[in-house]
């Protein structure tokens, strides 16, 4: 028997309307670092929307992940300005140093490495986000220092 109260707490923040589905799923993501299967089931029970449709949203929207993400999420902006100013080198360096491919999570569950198609901070390109903190003008040779400094306190 799954404890559904943790899901209900989030579902109850919103109006009972299909319009709220995406926002609820995003709150699940924020709270649990992924969208748990039990959460989808509970949301379906409460709203009457078929599980399949909620699952489809879970796979369609990039902000949602059906597998647990790491404790720290590193996002490399791969928008055009960042691409021109060295984002590919930054991404490769992180892949190599962390030992994961993009959208992967390290075995110890510490880091998830993601790409994001422009965060709208193009004037500070290339941008890397560590747990939603923006780092502008990042460089391949320094990016791991930035990550360590922030995540290891």
């Amino acid at each position, binding site marked *: 028997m799954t404890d559904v109260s943790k899901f209900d707490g989030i579902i109850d923040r919103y109006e009972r309307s299909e*319009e709220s589905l995406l926002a609820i799923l995003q709150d699940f993501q924020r709270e649990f670092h992924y969208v748990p299967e039990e959460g989808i089931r509970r949301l379906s029970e409460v709203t009457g929307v078929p599980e399949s449709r909620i699952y489809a949203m879970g796979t369609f*929207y990039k902000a949602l992940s059906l597998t647990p993400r790491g404790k720290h999420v590193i996002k490399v902006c791969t928008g055009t*300005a960042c691409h021109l100013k060295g984002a590919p080198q930054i991404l490769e360096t992180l892949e190599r140093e962390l030992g994961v491919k993009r959208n992967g999570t390290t075995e110890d569950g510490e880091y998830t490495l993601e790409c994001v*198609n*422009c965060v*709208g901070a*193009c*004037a*500070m*390109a290339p941008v890397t986000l560590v747990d939603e903190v923006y780092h502008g003008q990042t460089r391949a040779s320094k990016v791991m220092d930035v990550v360590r400094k922030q995540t290891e306190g």
Partner: protein
Amino acid sequence: MGAINSVERLEAYRKELASKVKEDLPAVLVCFGTGCQANGSRLVAEAFAKVIEEQGLRVGVNLGMKTTGCHGYCENGPLVALKPQDILYLKVTPEDVPEIVEETVKGGRVVERLVYRDKVTDEVIARYSEIPFYQHQQRIALRNIGNIDPASIDDYILAGGYAGLAKALGMEPEEIISEVERSGLRGRGGGGFPAGTKWRSCAAVESDVRYVMCNGDEGDPGAFMDRSIMEGDPHAVIEGMIIGALAVGAHQGYIYVRDEYPLAVRNLTTALEAAREKGLLGRDILGSGFDFDIKISRGGGAFVCGESSALMRSVEGNVGEPRAKYIRSVERGLYNRPTVLNNVETWANVPEIILKGAEWYASMGTEGSKGTKVFSLVGKVNNTGLVEVPMGISIRDLVEKIGGGILGGKRFKAVQTGGPSGGCIPERLADLPIDFDSLTEAGSMMGSGGIIVMDEDTCMVDVARYFTNFLVDESCGKCTPCRDGLPRMLDLLDDITGGRGTEEHLAMLEELCDLLTWGALCGLGTSAANPVLSTIRYFRDEYEAHIREKRCPAGVCKALITYSIDPEACTGCRLCAKNCPQECISGERKKPHVIDTSKCIKCGVCRDACTFDAVRVS
């Protein structure tokens, strides 16, 4: 105070606010846009607050401090503006604060090391309005950004906010639509469809329910004006939408904001609450009897949701897939009701057009594209950031006069406009005036106004590959040409950039582009070939160099380049060797180093680490 229940009361309230402001009071404005915050502006603001508190009474200097939206000149943040002196300080650190207070706030003197220095002429400019980046600008959509606190509705009202709405409440819906039509305002989100025409079509459809919506799903990489407006002047968007709702007879509105923009969601939420409290939103707006409210809908990180029909499906709580274009959203949009969807910048222009009139707006710009446009000038250019200029400025003026030329004195090669739906325009066409029609004729498009500047170190085949890869990643998968055509295009481009290309690759690429252009379902699909088509059109020689000579002229495509160290420039500092993940750089301290190319993975870390520019790519 409670709700303002008439237009007269609004004006009285504005006067009351004005009477409280003492013009001679010095003010420190610390930018709190995303860019400046990333550069540490919060610490700078805290430092000011501390110094002011400590010294405030003792020295008798009163200081109004505000946290403002983005000034657009993000690269040089944190930015601090000082009034009444009209001074702009760049890259301010908390350590600079006591000096600024002492010298400028108390003494009225300029701290020279913090002001703008022209990278080309070395000229020092302290006054905000004289910096070339700002000098050529004419700000309408960005009118308040940087001058007001986005969390304060009083600031917005004091700056003339909601006066457009007040005027609109005294007009017939037909008059409002006609005013917008005559202004020539075209949608700032991509296609450039005339806003007035859209409103008129929606108003003409028989229906008891209508919606107005704001597209804040700014997905074009390289464009961030909508983010800046939503974060820095949320009431401008809200006021525009209320006027639009009044014109078409809608009572519910939606703002769809990208998931990547949390600060925009926060500032819009605060603004909506404040507007409701003041009686400017909700039931009986300004005592007029008109009801209208707005909900915020957060996006889920899907590029395709910027497409109108996909966006509406997403708001309804579905997967955001577009539908066929023959059903127009002005007739059957959100929940199959007539809907007006405009983008953030378009809405932000509306209050000013109503207030100052269609003729005023139409006096700016070109024949087919009226008014001003916000561009995000980014990439390989000296001054990067947001600029608002009248339509019709040439690409060259934008890059050279406002942008201050190419980074590092390199050669200007091209600009990319319109995001993944746009194309690359070569330097030889840089005298082209920028407006909706001229960009389309040149094989690109306006899009949302991203101008990405490219220099000689940019490989145009790699750029085409980059956008194709982006689109493969973002294709929703509903229609075959986009879902299956783009990955095949990417395969071909991978071959070309990987040194495996043949003449046939180019021919096949062009054929697939053609297929995509006429076969895809939505606007994003039909324009998805533009990055490839425009680069083939203007930079065919670069494709041919990759194919025939297996050479990447810009030194970007990994399979076709080798790294080496210039023994003349190398000082033997060992920095590259220390950073090399392959440990394939050798050499003694203070003697030129050598790269073992058999082990080199071409990661570029050595080139990035080198402070003497001694690592060469050939």
